[in-house]
Structure formats: structure tokens, C-alpha cells
């Protein structure tokens, strides 16, 4: 579904931001891209959606090489939710903002209405369809940005710090959206600094350090390697630390921690 082959990128000659990055993500997998600020996460994201072109190497998204496909056409294969949703909102109604992407893909009439209606339900804003996007709270506004990309039904979904600024209910809703997308075979990539969110939602972690792929492991494998997480500069989620301290199997969520704790007590 998504193949990154030996990619190198630099903003200025002689100062590569990404070097020799190679990985493949199959359909229906949720992958987190983690690393310190400046590690190259956002640059990688912009290479994946075709906004930047690699200096060497190749990126293929859903069968389309990013080097040969214009960004607006690549948008059919890969949807991106950027960090600042305000930067894309221009319509006077939430419903029109959600409909913008599908309209660009040529969707009209009943098919468009049905798709937009379904997305409004998924993001929990069916009751705000006619409201101006700038009149709703920041959390809901971010959900509008997420919804506007979901409405395009891309086979690959990139979420750049999508959970940041969301309230508890919206974070739970986002987690459900990610799980639903995974179930329908969408490849989801999360660029994320919130390791609890990564632990709960990702199947696999790609760790970037100084522009190189320093880790490509299952989420559990990544968070139980203390030396690796320290080298990449990310915190180990509390649940993983707690379960390790109590001699339990690594738990990536409170639910799994509780199950492991109950099982030990019952034994």
C-alpha cells in the first residue's frame, strides 16, 4: 500500500534531513512515526503526500509514484490532516467544509450528501452541520479537518498530531475512527508526540533519529526496549512502565493492564 525505498531529502545541499529511509506499510496497519523535534517526522509526511520530492529513492502510494503524480491527484490515494486545522478551513458551514474534498474528487448529488452525512456522524458533528467552522470550539474544529479528509475515503491516511488539542471525548472518537479505518483496510500513519496515544492505537512504531530510521518494531517491542526509546528521545507510556515495575507483561493500555493484573490475582 505504501512503500518508501531508500529515500533521502535535504532542504539545503549537504545537509540531509532524511537519509536512507526504507519501510513498507501494508493495508490495514496503523503505524506511528515518532522522534524528537527536528528528527524529520513532518518532512517525511510531506514526502509521503507528494508536497516534497525525495532527492534520491522512491515513494509509492497505492501504486502511484509520488514523483510522477501531481499532488492534487495523489490526494485520491493519500489524505493528510495537518497540525493546524484553521489553515484549511474556508467555508462558511461545517457541512461545506467536509464536502470540499469529495467535490474535488468529482462526487456530486446524493452520493456526496450521503458521504458527507456519514462523516458528520462519525466525527460527532451532525448537529453542527450548518454552523460556521470558526464558531465551534477548537476540538470540534480539528474534528472538521479530520472529517474533511475522511470524506475523501483515501486508502492511506496521514494524521499529523491529530490528537493534540482534542478534549477527552474527541480523543476517544478519534481512536474509534482510527480503529474503524484499520478495520476497513486503510493504512494509517500517525505522526505523534503523545506516547500513550501511540501505545493505545498503533500496531507498529517507526522511530526517527537525526533523519534516519532508528527503529521499526511492533508497538510492544518498541516500548519495551528502554535503550531504543531513550535513543530516539520518547517517553515510555506509564502503563508500560507500571506493568514492568509490577512484573507483568507489557500493557499498552489501562484496559490491558487491568486484565493482566486481574489474571495474576486470580492465579
Amino acid at each position: 500500500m505504501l512503500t518508501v525505498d531508500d529515500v533521502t531529502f535535504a532542504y539545503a545541499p549537504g545537509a540531509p534531513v532524511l537519509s536512507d529511509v526504507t519501510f513498507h506499510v501494508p493495508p490495514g496497519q496503523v503505524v506511528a512515526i515518532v522522534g524528537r523535534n527536528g528528527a524529520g517526522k513532518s518532512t517525511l509526511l510531506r514526502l509521503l503526500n507528494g508536497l516534497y520530492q525525495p532527492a534520491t529513492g522512491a515513494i509509492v502510494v497505492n501504486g502511484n509514484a509520488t514523483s510522477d503524480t501531481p499532488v492534487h491527484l495523489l490526494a485520491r490515494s493519500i489524505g493528510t490532516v495537518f497540525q493546524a486545522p484553521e489553515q484549511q478551513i474556508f467555508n462558511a458551514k461545517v457541512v461545506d467544509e467536509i464536502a470540499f474534498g469529495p467535490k474535488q474528487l468529482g462526487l456530486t448529488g446524493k452520493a456526496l450528501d450521503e458521504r458527507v452525512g456519514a462523516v458528520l456522524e462519525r466525527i460527532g458533528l451532525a448537529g453542527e452541520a450548518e454552523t460556521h467552522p470558526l464558531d465551534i470550539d477548537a476540538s470540534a474544529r480539528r474534528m472538521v479537518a479530520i472529517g474533511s479528509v475522511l470524506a475523501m475515503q483515501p486508502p492511506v491516511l496521514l494524521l499529523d498530531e491529530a490528537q493534540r488539542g482534542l478534549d477527552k471525548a474527541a480523543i476517544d472518537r478519534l481512536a474509534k475512527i482510527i480503529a474503524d479505518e484499520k478495520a476497513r483496510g486503510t493504512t494509517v500513519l500517525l505522526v505523534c508526540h503523545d506516547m500513550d496515544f501511540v501505545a493505545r492505537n498503533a500496531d507498529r512504531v517507526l522511530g526517527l533519529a537525526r533523519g534516519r530510521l532508528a527503529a521499526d518494531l511492533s508497538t510492544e517491542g518498541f516500548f519495551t526496549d528502554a535503550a531504543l526509546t531513550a535513543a530516539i528521545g520518547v517517553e515510555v507510556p506509564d502503563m508500560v512502565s507500571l506493568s514492568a515495575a509490577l512484573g507483568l507483561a507489557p500493557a499498552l493500555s489501562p484496559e490491558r493492564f487491568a486484565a493482566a493484573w486481574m489474571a495474576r490475582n486470580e492465579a
Partner: protein
Amino acid sequence: MSAGKAGQPSLLFTPGESLLHRANPITSLALMLWMISAAAVLPTIGTTILTAAAILVSLVTGVGKRAVKRLLLTMTPIGVALVVVHGLLIERPDFYDHGLVSISPSGLDYALRVFMRVAAMLMATLLFVTTTHPADMLKALDQRGVPPGVGYLVASPLLLIEPFSDRAKAIRDAQRVRGLDMTGSWKARIKALPVLLMPLITLALSDLDQRASVLSGRAFRALPRRTVINAPHDSTFQLWLRRLLFTLAVLQLGIPLLWR
């Protein structure tokens, strides 16, 4: 140097060690004002020499590539419009038929005069903005005892270019990845304009309020005169040069008005 995400500088300022870079920003401002006032009154041959001299200075100071590129980008459509309107469209007494088109030599002469005047003024401005950093300009104004509000009013448009330009790029990227075609026909590009401008204007207005609150919160206008750390270099020679340039600028504009 300020740089956007893609490593391309958003400010026109280009670092350097030339005389103009090292000059006090008020001196550079005086030079720009003198050049603009000279361009306003000189005949075409004078504005041509002034523009050529400014281009030469920009090349010597190491800002030539950026300045000349901007000059060409701005002046090419203006030049075409002036020739079409004054040379071909507006009927004048010397309007005569050349077969396919009718041309007015006096219209072309007028177009050339306006073109060179605007080019000289633009080149003077480009020389100033490519060699003077807005932050240094603010410091120099503070140093001269200009009220903070006035200084901010002068320098803020230059300081805002960078964040505004970065935001415009971010908005363009956000819309492109939602399928907006910005590479197609002119019709498609014009159709895309509201999609790009609406968030830019909305965010700029929201920024205004935030900036005003931040400045008030930092007691921006509490003291009429602020202490300047790392004030730009100044000298008696530059002080007299500035006085001369300001006087010349006023005389250049004033004498033709009084003697007319």
C-alpha cells in the same frame, strides 16, 4: 537568515557585510527616500541612470540576484500593460497605422517615462529591504527616540512578511492535499483563489487581535523611550549624510513645485 519550511527565505533581507548592510538603517532609509524623490522628478534618462546605478550597487553588495529577480517579476507585467494602454489603445494626435497595429510614439514615450520612474522607485525600495533587517530598523528608530508605536507601525509590515508568507505556503499545501488543482488552467487557478485567501485573511484578522493583546500585555507603550541593546552602528558622518539626503529629497520635490 529567516527561512520557511522549505528552506527558502521569506524576508527579502539578505545578510552581508557591504557598506549598505553596515550602514545605520536610518541612513539606508534616507538614501531610499532620496532615490524615490529623485525618481519622481528626473527625466527618463535620469531615472534610467538611477535604476542602472541601483542595480550595479545591488550586485556589488551581494543582493543583486534577489533584487533584480523581484524587479523583473514586478516590472514585466507593468511594462506590458503600459505599452498596450499608452502605445496601442489610447488615441493621441500622433496615432498612426502600422498595418496590423496602430502605434502612438508619444504614448510609447510616456509609457517608457512611467516605466523607468516606477523601476527606479522600486529598485530604491528593493535596495533598502534587501540590506536592512526589519529588527535593526526597529532598534534604530528606538535609538532615535521615535515612540514605540510609530516604530512598530513602520517596521511591522516588514516583520509580518515572513509569518504571512509561511502561512500562505501552509494553506496552499493543506488545500493541495485535499485535491485542489493549482497547476491547471487560469480558470482553475482563479477558482482556487478564495480557497487560499479566505483562511489567510481570517487568520490575519485573528492575529491582529492577538498581537495587540500581547503588546498590551507586555506594556509596549508604557515608556515613551526604551533602552536599546545592540543598537545599530552610527557615526557623525552618517548623521550629516542623512541630513543631506533628507534635505535633497525635500528640495528635489519642493523646487519643481514652487517654480512651476
